[in-house]
């Protein structure tokens, strides 16, 4: 006789077995090599920045959950990703108090107010960075040379700036390839760019490792490959056309692809699924918009870099993309748009 009380569940009774937490954890794995290279090339200061932003995001998430009497959602790893990515987009010599502030903003303003994981309409890490860039534009464009010999023994003087105080700028600051191009028309070597032998934000310098992380995630079906491909294609094609028109004025498409935050942004930040469109065609359009905005801002805009702005603007557009681009439903003549 079988006496057991049976479980009841609703169909389907099987599932892929991948959970949101798994996805998030794997994104962290994929980011670790990038972070490790950041520490290798910029030293202790970079390590401190990354640790600070991650801690700030995780703590903020925890306390906001507590404050709103919800179960803490720290364990889903998404706050850790936001923190890690925020750290990777900041300069290595960024004052820690500002980095901490950025982490708090990223989660509070970029995620919590919208209802937490899954509801944020903007990329939280980039909201944090955008606020930091607008609040402390000088500190966030003060760069630190890569591979300085003392990087593992000393910190940048700016790192431990007293909270609320202005960071001291040391004599070290060097230009990144993009600003060197924008203001002095010096084009960096593409191989140096790809291998990360340049200065820039902590995590943006080594394109090779970023791509590797992206390929890992795509292979595990944890990332939408269409987004980076669409961005890269658009940037390459548009800047390629400009380059053909006048190679004196416009930078080469390879330089465009490998400089600045484009790699990190396209692979890890534009792909944040929460704030991007959901349909395959929509995602292509989204990528194309980002690519186009990046080229426009970099070439004609005032700022040397525009990846962050491009992604945030595209985030704002993505509800419309989802609304307008809907796959044709099986058995209907045309997808019926919301009237």
């Amino acid at each position: 006789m079988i006496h057991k009380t049976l479980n009841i569940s609703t169909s389907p009774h099987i599932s892929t077995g991948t959970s949101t937490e798994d996805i998030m954890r794997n994104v962290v794995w994929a980011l670790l090599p990038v972070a490790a290279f950041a520490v290798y090339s910029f030293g202790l200061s970079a390590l401190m920045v990354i640790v600070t932003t991650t801690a700030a995001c995780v703590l903020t998430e925890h306390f906001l959950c507590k404050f709103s009497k919800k179960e803490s959602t720290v364990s889903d790893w998404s706050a850790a990703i936001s923190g890690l990515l925020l750290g990777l987009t900041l300069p290595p010599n960024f004052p820690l108090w500002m980095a901490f502030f950025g982490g708090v903003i990223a989660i509070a303003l970029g995620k919590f107010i919208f209802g937490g994981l899954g509801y944020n309409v903007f990329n939280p890490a980039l909201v944090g960075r955008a606020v930091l860039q607008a609040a402390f534009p000088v500190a966030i464009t003060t760069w630190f040379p890569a591979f300085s010999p003392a990087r593992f023994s000393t910190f940048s003087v700016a790192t431990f700036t007293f909270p609320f105080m202005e960071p001291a700028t040391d004599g070290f600051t060097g230009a990144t390839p993009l600003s060197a191009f924008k203001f002095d028309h010096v084009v960096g070597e593409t191989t140096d760019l790809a291998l990360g032998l340049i200065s820039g934000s902590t995590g943006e310098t080594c394109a090779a490792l970023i791509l590797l992380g992206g390929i890992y995630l795509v292979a595990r079906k944890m990332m939408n490959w269409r987004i980076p491909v669409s961005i890269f294609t658009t940037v390459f094609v548009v800047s390629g056309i400009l380059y053909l028109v006048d190679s004196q004025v416009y930078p080469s498409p390879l330089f465009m692809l490998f400089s600045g935050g484009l790699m990190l942004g396209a692979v890890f930040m534009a792909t944040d699924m929460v704030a991007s469109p959901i349909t395959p065609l929509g995602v292509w359009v989204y990528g194309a918009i980002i690519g186009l905005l990046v080229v426009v801002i970099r070439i004609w805009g005032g700022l040397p870099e525009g990846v962050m702005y491009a992604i945030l603007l595209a985030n704002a557009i993505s509800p419309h993309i989802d609304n307008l681009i809907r796959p044709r439903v099986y058995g209907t003549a045309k997808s019926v748009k919301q009237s």
Partner: protein
Amino acid sequence: MKEGNPAHTTEQASSFKMLRAMVGIGLICALLIVLTFQGTLPRIEKLKAEALEKAIFKVIPGMVKKKTYQLDQKNKLSEVSDDKKGGQLVYVGYDENGKLAGVAVAASGIGFADVISILYGYDLEKQALVGFYVLESKETPGLGDKIEKDPNFLANFGALDVMLNDDKNALKNAVKVVKQGTKKNPWEIDAITGATISSRAIGNILSTSTEQWIPLIIKNKDLFEAHKNEKAQQ
């Protein structure tokens, strides 16, 4: 919910009332406005003139007296009154001896946030820009507004070389912005770190404007001085 409107016959009366009310209010308003306008006009004009004077004085040190010239269609300069609008104006300044002290030129161009308008002073003796003043800018406070406040940046305009070439029809060396701390030649401007775009915009404005104006001013030097003599004699 309609209120009973028994006063149908009073329609004419009410339209008369309307007219009366509007005319009455219109009169009161007109009176108030005109009174205020008349009352404040002298002081406003004085303040405005003072502000302009102050700006010009900033860019032409030693100026005590000025005249305003306007460039007409045929590229000719002629004297006009201050508040004349339209056409490009230059202000010619004279020192206490009535000697030509310099010329102030207004110029504008696209900056970081919007159009920037500036005034710069040109010293004909030194063949250099000797003063610089921002008339209007919407650049980011604390950042782009360093073009108005940063002493290091303003120091660029103590004597910015705008010497003409031998043909006297163009600058020998165009005004140029370089990265902060790398200024080597007297015609270069040291940019502001953190406000590269605004400081470059100033450079661009100056370089286009000086290309046009410096040769013109030199050409009209006699005109400016003649006027002085004329006035001095009277």
